[in-house]
């Protein structure tokens, strides 16, 4: 009933916008990373023509990311922080999502509202909250001294890896729980009843039915929070600020906002994006599949 040209015309402004302000900017990063640096003034001289690309900076950064290089420690630390935070999110998040999806009953709506609430509280506010709590005379230290766990205030904010990981878990766990909840909520209970009728223990039923069927939600949630965590620099800066807890994002931030060396910053950004492209691809593919199913209904 609609003319054929109508829908592409509707899509055009948005698509053009995204090409100009999402795709072309990547070309800007490539141009700078594969460009050169002015030998006297030190500013970036981008190379927009692929024929003039100079791979020197990118290969140099890659070399420094290898064992023994100056970014090796940061890269390893970033992966450690992300992996430990993901494990923490899964350990806390799975029982919560499972309970809300299966057993919450009349409290389900209330719990869902509480679950969504942190989404709409600014990330910076939630970090500020912990900076207040973990300060030397904050509630956490005063409670620990009151209960005789500590005798003097502990410097939670003085560059502790554990504080950074704690903050990462706190910051990102809402984004992990929600997709997990959605996938657990979708599971058809008749599968579980069948398993129980056939003699499976509750634990076996969980292991063979619930866990495999929630795999997409688990992996989707993990990828969804791993991506921003790999690019995070503000969380370590807010709750620690020490170079001993800096992540790869801090390194990029430093090359742009510290002593500006955009060429190296751009080179690290390109390497990071290439690495993350695998995760992004996986996630987009699952969304794409889900959208296709929606369309086919």
């Amino acid at each position, binding site marked *: 009933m609609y003319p054929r040209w109508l829908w592409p015309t509707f899509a055009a402004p*948005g698509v053009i916008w*995204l090409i100009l302000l999402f795709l072309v900017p990547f070309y800007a990063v490539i141009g700078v990373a594969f460009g050169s640096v002015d030998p006297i003034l030190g500013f970036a001289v981008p190379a927009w023509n692929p024929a003039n690309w100079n791979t020197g900076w990118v290969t140099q950064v890659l070399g420094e990311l290898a064992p023994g290089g100056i970014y090796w420690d940061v890269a390893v630390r970033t992966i450690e922080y992300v992996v430990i935070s993901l494990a923490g999110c899964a350990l806390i998040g799975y029982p919560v999502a499972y309970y809300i999806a299966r*057993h919450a009953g009349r409290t389900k709506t209330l*719990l869902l509202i509480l679950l969504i609430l942190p989404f709409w509280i600014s990330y*910076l506010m939630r970090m500020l909250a912990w900076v*207040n709590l973990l300060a030397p005379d904050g509630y956490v230290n005063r409670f620990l001294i009151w209960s005789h766990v500590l005798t003097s205030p502990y410097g939670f904010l003085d560059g502790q890896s554990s504080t950074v990981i704690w903050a990462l878990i706190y910051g990102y766990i809402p984004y992990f729980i929600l997709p997990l909840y959605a996938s657990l909520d979708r599971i058809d209970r008749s599968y579980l009843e069948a398993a129980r009728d056939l003699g499976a223990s509750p634990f076996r039923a969980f292991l063979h039915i619930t866990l495999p069927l929630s795999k997409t939600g688990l992996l989707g949630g993990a990828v969804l929070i791993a991506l921003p965590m790999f690019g995070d620099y503000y969380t370590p800066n807010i709750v620690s600020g020490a170079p001993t807890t800096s992540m790869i994002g801090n390194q990029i931030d430093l090359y742009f906002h510290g002593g500006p060396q955009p060429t190296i910053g751009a080179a690290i950004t390109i390497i990071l994006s290439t690495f993350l492209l695998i995760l992004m691809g996986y996630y987009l593919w699952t969304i794409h599949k889900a959208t296709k199913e929606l369309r086919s209904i």
Partner: protein
Amino acid sequence: MSESAVSAPQSKQSFSLWQRVSGWVVNPWGRPRFLVLITWAYMVWAIVPVIIAVQFSFNDGRSRTVWQGFSTQWYWSNPDSIWNNAELRDALVHSLTLAAWDVLIAVPLGVTLALGLARWRSRGSGGANFLMLFPLVTPEIVMGVSLLLLFTQLPPFTHIHTGGLAQVLGHVTFSISYVVVIVRGRMFSIGREYEEAAADLGASPGVALWKVLLPLLMPAIVASAAIVFAISIDDFVISQWLSSGPSTTTVPMEIYDATRAAPTPATNAIATVMVIVTLTSVVAGFLVWRAFTRGQHGAKQSTMRDFAAFDV
């Protein structure tokens, strides 16, 4: 093993406190109570620190960690309060202005893109779909770096340079996808029947689009406007990378700088204002959505779900 079997009969009275607590928690026949405990403990952990931070915005002293009585001085009267400190006030105004521009540009762009992507079937539509989803999963620092280099290095974009305009362009770029996802979800759920009925009754394509489809999409459009407003207010990374200095500082940037320097309860106060603005906008969006979709098929269960599932 045998000992426990022997002692079982008289153990009715002699349950220790620990046994009673652990028995209540891991009761295999009733509701899984240890899940209840974990869930509520998680909720307290997730929400209470923020409530404490809000509480300290009303502190009657300069401390954000020691309670010295109730006062609203960090909102109004103190020279460093939101009202009197020009830096904080400007940041608040700038954040709100940025969010308003973001809504005004991103919502129309997103709605038309959603219409196009939901119905357009040809080569190219798959690629456009993928392109639309990418900003949702790209780490913000990557978008920040690339937009910064675009506006400072690549002609002719260098005319824009960093600053308020660059921030608006950046915010719209990450907001469009949210609008598309929400509006397209609504399109899938209402189907084509209403428009086809209108066409059968003699409506031209323009009328079917304007008088039938658009009103049906209204709840999604309002909801996406509310959500775009909220994510724009809360955004830190893109605003920071595209800022050109104090005149383009947003509230999250103020909080970030303050936590690293010497914050006063005024920081908590402005963060509280930001939380209130965000929550008000989202709740208003939710109420409008519910009012519009009331009485529609399956509305009751799906309202919450549709609204919760905005991010996939």
